[in-house]
């Protein structure tokens, strides 16, 4: 009986510690606000005149120390926790908005494409809105621990594969047959070699607006 009591009190104490820790954590994360006119319920917008799309994302601090190949992934996708930035925006909404602002999809890659093949489509410039200023995506990441000048993002399209795979991939660092847009600087299957810079990007859990401009 005595052992049972000790066991129950220990488990209660442990659950209490966990509960306090996680509730504190949830509170700090739950405080969402409007960023660049976007909220979690309306996470994406487009401007036809400026040929721009803005997406509301959340920084995943894991990839400020660990490598990934995913820039932005929808939270409900199977890769929802594997990207530098998470978003409520769906790949479909991003695809449709890119079409609306006049971008042309490359649709040249499939899962069977040769390793090293590069994505085609309209060229895109990607900016992160940090403290009200636009910072080029290339300034905020490192490839194998080194700075990179131009990731050469393109509108790959890939809507059919994206619907089929359900990965949630919106934007990838290297050429990808699934992501709606991806970087042509590095070919298909280049892999997980991209890390966010903690000196440039806000901390884990912060909201960040990303602007994608059709060149």
């Amino acid at each position, binding site marked *: 009986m005595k052992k049972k009591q000790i066991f129950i009190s220990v488990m209660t104490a442990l659950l209490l*510690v966990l509960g306090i*820790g996680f509730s504190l954590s949830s509170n700090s994360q739950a405080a969402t606000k409007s960023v660049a006119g976007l909220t979690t319920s309306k996470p994406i917008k487009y401007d036809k005149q400026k040929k721009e799309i803005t997406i509301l994302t959340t920084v995943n601090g*894991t990839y*400020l120390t*660990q490598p990934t190949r995913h820039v932005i992934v929808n939270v409900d996708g199977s890769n929802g926790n594997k990207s530098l930035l998470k978003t409520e925006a769906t790949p479909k909404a991003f695809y449709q908005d890119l079409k609306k602002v006049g971008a042309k999809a490359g649709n040249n890659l499939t899962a069977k494409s040769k390793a090293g093949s590069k994505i085609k489509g309209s060229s895109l410039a990607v900016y992160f809105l940090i403290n009200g200023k636009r910072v080029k995506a290339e300034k905020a990441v490192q490839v194998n621990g080194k700075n990179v000048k131009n990731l050469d993002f393109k509108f790959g399209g890939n809507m059919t594969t994206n619907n089929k795979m359900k990965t949630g991939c919106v934007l990838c660092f290297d050429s990808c047959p699934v992501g709606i847009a991806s970087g042509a600087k590095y070919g298909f299957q280049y892999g997980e070699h991209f890390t966010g810079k903690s000196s440039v990007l806000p901390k*884990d*859990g912060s909201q960040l607006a990303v602007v994608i401009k059709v060149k």
Partner: protein
Amino acid sequence: MTRLRILYNGVVIGILCALLAWQSTWLQMRISLGWLIPVVTVLVYCCYLFYGKHLQQNWAIFRFSETLIISAVSFLLLLAIYQWHPLSVVLGETVRELFNADWSLSVTAGSVFVLLIIWLLVLVLDSYRHPVPKLNQGDQITKLTLQSKISLGVTIGFIILLIAGYYFIPGYRHFIDTVSVMLAKLDIKALRNYIAGFGIWGPLISTFLMVFQSILAPLPAFVLTFANAYLYGWLFGAALSWFSAMLGALLCFYIARGIGRPFAEKIVTKKALAKMDGFFNEYGDYTIIVLRLLPFVSFDEVSYGAGFTDMKVGKFLIATGIGQLPATIVYSFVGGSLGGSKLMLFMALIAVILLVVVSLFVRKILQKRQAKKKTGVPNDQV
């Protein structure tokens, strides 16, 4: 409370597996590695349910001392691979991914650490209140029993993990390569800078390095003793080297004991083991002390050798502690004087020579005493 201890071990081993798996980006990108924690915990618990009832006592690996060793080795290994900040980030992500939550990484990792520490403290209290009785025949297993088969399995599994990790975990391979080159080249300065690079975690890393070099017998330990004294001063350096060498010796002893006599007899023949027994019988309890005193006898081979005999762990630890003390102090004195004056260096050199002479002299006396015991002939006639 035994169940609580087993669950704790399961969780710690699960966390270790999950965080080691992070080293494979291919794996990390494809599955939620957090699931490894409950899966491994259930596996460990099932092992206990299956084997626990068949054994004479509780499964040795789940006694409190082993629990503490598992926790310390896991923590040091992960710290050496990741360093502090990335370790807390990866731990936090592993747990929050498991729950698909948006918790802060630092709070999540902090909560897990606090939880494990509280859990461990409860186990400490329990181990004092209800100590697990020792195995009746655990130290003298000469036939393959279920107990020795499990020990053999666990030990071989541990060794395979160590070797496989080298080929599949880039961070671990880099660490092993870097450290091995420094130790083999006797590069004290490079080793000092490497340990110093870990900041306040330096002593922990140094301990881990000493344990690592203990397992790989050909690597010399005195380079690390020099580096410790060079970094932390001769007194603290000596204490650190002494403590970590004890841990290393204990691990070697347990590896040998885990492999066990029945299996060792098949590999190195009964005759060879009998010869080793004879050597230990000849010098009695002084064997370890004498061998430790001699600077030219491999520290690690002695530990492995002792593990194959029926020597008790307590006696082995006391003998190791006493035997390695003079050499540790002298080497630390040399290490501490590396950045100092020529007089200090000269004194250190004299101390080394003295150590060798005294140890040879002690060996001679003990040999004579042993011979006297055997034949009953007075000392001066031997």
